[in-house]
């Protein structure tokens, strides 16, 4: 704690403010790169994990917030802020050279706010088409459908391969550069946006040499629905249903995260009963999501039967959800202050029956697939992700843990009822596809343990705290981290004291996973690329938002 405070005070031109575990550091934009590289490379404490980059339109200025975490002290975060008052040609130095994950984050900020990052070699738009007019998350964005009609033709591939960049060399000379993504003789294949194994509408452009992957370029935005912009015009309870539809596989977990962030802002005391129920529902969601991820990975490798088995067991969880929450996929359960309705009288009985069933089925899954010689042959020795790379890429969740990075938010910063349950954080060290595969099944076991401990001890009392009809968050910034089934999900709410948030940002765990795919798939075969995609288990609508 003191180390961080000292470090923050040493940053050039910085003003530091502390809020609990968070340090808010503001630096002028000229000093940004120096400050960032000091935080990244110093002798005392390296901030090696760039959690997120948040763009912000403050009205007269455009701001960028870098959320930094040192993996030694994962519970503390630094929010490095900078802003520029040039709205016409906003420019900020890039941090791509410091963190690998900054690549896509900076493109996202450029896409939404038009801030160009100097010296970033790839400044294409991330979600919207290259010919999109305007920057949608700016407050003065013109949403006239005339400006951006529904296009008739798919995007020009040449335009997608042209990487514009703005570079300023040491002498201060400005260079507008255009690079080509692929070489002329590359055999480039499109995977997606409509492809059976891209787990949603992901578009991968792949340069192949025979069967060997030379380069992967992910393209997003085929399911970009502008949720963050819509949030700015919705009240807090209305936002909840949009979150469900972002990462539909860990919907309840993400919704829970948003509720926690709002409750933090309101300083609302949530009843203990709600905490327990939310935690059980979260863990059930995690099991369902891992089962689906497991099934899809097996399906990607050609074992369709395994996929069906995964879905079959998932249906048991869907039954429990349906009975208590009323919805199958979209449980719509957590609300601000608690949960929507009390649990069904049969809930505990059903959950108790589910735990031994799932344990039995896990054994079957291991027999069917884990022990299969072909499956082992496919998974072992492929897709190595080192711990350092995982941290630098920000590959959280099971993927990072398979590489030995202890990043479970449930352990780092326990929320809800996790502090009442005993469970182990699953860690493996090899960082291979097989580890990423096994860790999901192991986490199902751990989740079952958590559920087992909590389900019998649900305390009585109210299931939700009373809230006002119109929820207004006090002025300020609120941040909440939760452990989604695919990785760390963060909610950032910037409130100006109104019933609508000023800016909402969700850290999508899946975006970094696709970025990881880009790095680890090089040199593997086409079949491996598909399998790696399955092993990373990303959900595209979560990225595109």
């Amino acid at each position, binding site marked *: 704690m003191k180390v961080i405070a000292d470090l923050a005070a040493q940053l050039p031109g910085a003003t530091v403010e502390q809020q609990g575990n968070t340090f808010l550091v503001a630096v002028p934009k000229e000093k940004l790169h120096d400050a960032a590289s000091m935080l990244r490379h110093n002798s005392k404490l390296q901030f090696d994990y760039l959690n997120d980059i948040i763009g912000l339109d403050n009205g007269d200025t455009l701001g960028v917030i870098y959320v930094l975490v040192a993996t030694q002290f994962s519970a503390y975060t630094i929010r490095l802020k900078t802003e520029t008052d040039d709205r016409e040609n906003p420019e900020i130095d890039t941090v791509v050279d410091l963190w690998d994950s900054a690549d896509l984050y900076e493109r996202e900020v450029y896409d939404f706010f038009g801030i160009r990052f100097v010296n970033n070699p790839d400044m294409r738009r991330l979600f919207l088409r290259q010919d999109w007019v305007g920057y949608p998350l700016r407050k003065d964005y013109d949403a006239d459908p005339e400006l951006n009609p529904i296009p008739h033709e798919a995007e020009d591939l040449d335009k997608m391969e042209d990487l514009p960049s703005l570079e300023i060399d040491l002498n201060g000379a400005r260079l507008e550069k255009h690079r080509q993504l692929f070489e002329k003789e590359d055999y480039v294949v499109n995977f997606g946006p409509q492809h059976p194994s891209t787990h949603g509408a992901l578009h991968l452009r792949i340069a192949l040499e025979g069967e060997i992957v030379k380069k992967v370029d992910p393209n997003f935005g085929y399911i970009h629905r502008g949720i963050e912009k819509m949030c700015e015009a919705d009240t807090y309870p209305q936002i909840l249903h949009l979150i469900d539809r972002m990462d539909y596989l860990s919907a309840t977990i993400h919704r829970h995260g948003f509720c926690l962030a709002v409750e933090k802002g309101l300083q609302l005391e949530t009843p203990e009963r709600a905490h327990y129920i939310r935690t059980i529902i979260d863990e059930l969601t995690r099991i369902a999501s891992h089962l689906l991820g497991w099934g899809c990975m097996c399906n990607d490798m050609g074992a369709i039967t395994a996929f069906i088995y995964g879905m079959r067991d998932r249906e048991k969880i869907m039954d429990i959800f349906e009975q208590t929450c009323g919805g199958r996929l979209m449980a719509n359960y957590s609300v601000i202050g608690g949960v929507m309705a009390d649990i069904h009288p049969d809930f505990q009985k059903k959950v108790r029956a589910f735990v031994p069933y799932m344990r039995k089925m896990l054994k079957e899954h291991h027999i069917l697939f884990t022990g299969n010689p072909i*499956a082992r042959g496919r998974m072992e020795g492929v897709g190595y992700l080192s711990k350092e790379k995982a941290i630098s890429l920000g590959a959280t969740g099971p993927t990072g843990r398979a590489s030995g990075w202890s990043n479970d938010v449930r352990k780092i910063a326990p929320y809800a009822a996790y502090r009442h349950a005993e469970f182990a954080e699953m860690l493996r060290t090899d960082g291979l596809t097989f580890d990423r595969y096994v860790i999901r099944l192991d986490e199902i076991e751990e989740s079952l343990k958590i559920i087992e401990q909590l389900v019998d001890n649900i305390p009585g009392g109210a299931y939700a705290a009373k809230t006002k009809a119109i929820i207004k968050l006090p002025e300020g910034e609120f941040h909440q981290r939760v452990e989604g089934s695919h990785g760390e999900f963060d909610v950032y709410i910037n409130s100006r004291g109104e019933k609508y948030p000023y800016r909402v940002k969700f850290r999508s765990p899946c975006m970094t996973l696709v970025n990881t795919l880009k790095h680890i798939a090089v040199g593997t075969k086409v079949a491996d690329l598909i399998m790696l995609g399955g092993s990373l288990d990303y959900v595209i609508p979560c990225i595109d938002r």
Partner: protein
Amino acid sequence: MFDFSIVTAWIDHFLRTYLDEGWALLVEFVLVGLVILTVYAVLALLLIYIERKICAFFQCRIGPNRVGPWGVFQSVADMVKILLKEIIKIDRADPLLFRIASFLVIIASICTFGAIPFDPALHAVNFNMGVFYLLAVSSLGVIGILLAGWSSNNKYTMIGAMRSGAQLISYELSCGLSLMSIVVLAGSMQLSEIVNQQAEMWFIFKGHIPACIAFLIYLIAGHAETNRGPFDLPEAESELTAGYHTEYSGIQFGFFYLAEYLNMFIIAAIASTMFLGGWMPLHIVGWEAFNGVMDMIPPVVWFFGKTFFCVFLALWIRWSFPRLRIDQLLSLEWKVLMPLALINILFMALCVM
């Protein structure tokens, strides 16, 4: 015991009483062709239905059960639909090769189908080098697949075709070599002769361990030849959308679809003919009463029983294994199966001596 020689002899006699020698022969040729085509189509529909049903049972599902009793007409409905489906003209595809490809695949498969002895009397093409013919004709199909992949002007089909070229040509070797060890045992290449030699005992028992090894190798290599999981790399649904036939629609796709299922049947039929005695009933030397009972079952039933057993094995494997990677696939062939098959022939030769 009933066999089809009664029926065929009667037809032959009937035609010859009313027609000249030459005309009778011509009519017989046409009849045989028609029967083969019909049986081919009906078997394909049956196999598709069987696969869908068995796959469903492996996956805790029910499978087709709405169209007709137990859904037996499901594949008939599929056929009706696919016959009337539009055939799309592909821009910048090679029109001639694109059309020919699907026919090549199905012709190769029908030609092989004709040479299978279903019954002592139901054996359309009985060469004295039948095994050689089977291998030669069945490997024509790969040309169709390569052409399909190349002429579609599509990158997925191209990758699929290249994969299938590498795969089929490699596995052809161990396929042939494992059959050769049976030829060594039988001393003949004529299929009817091979089946007749198994009257006392099927080759898989007669040939001791080498025959068992050859049977296993043939099952694996043959399964790979049919392009079905875990060897379905040329199609690889999750990787190449539909592999070499991505661009085909309507009945042209139907041809590939039929050929895929019938190839599975053909491989199973050859396996049962060469190793499990074909239409020959199970005989055990010395157990005359038992042999008599076995002879009561018509040869056609024996043949289809054994073949469908092999088909079931193929489906079992198909629905429980994940797909191999191309390098694993090729190293399995060149580093394991082919050397094993070569050594196996040597062993077989020693056994026979």
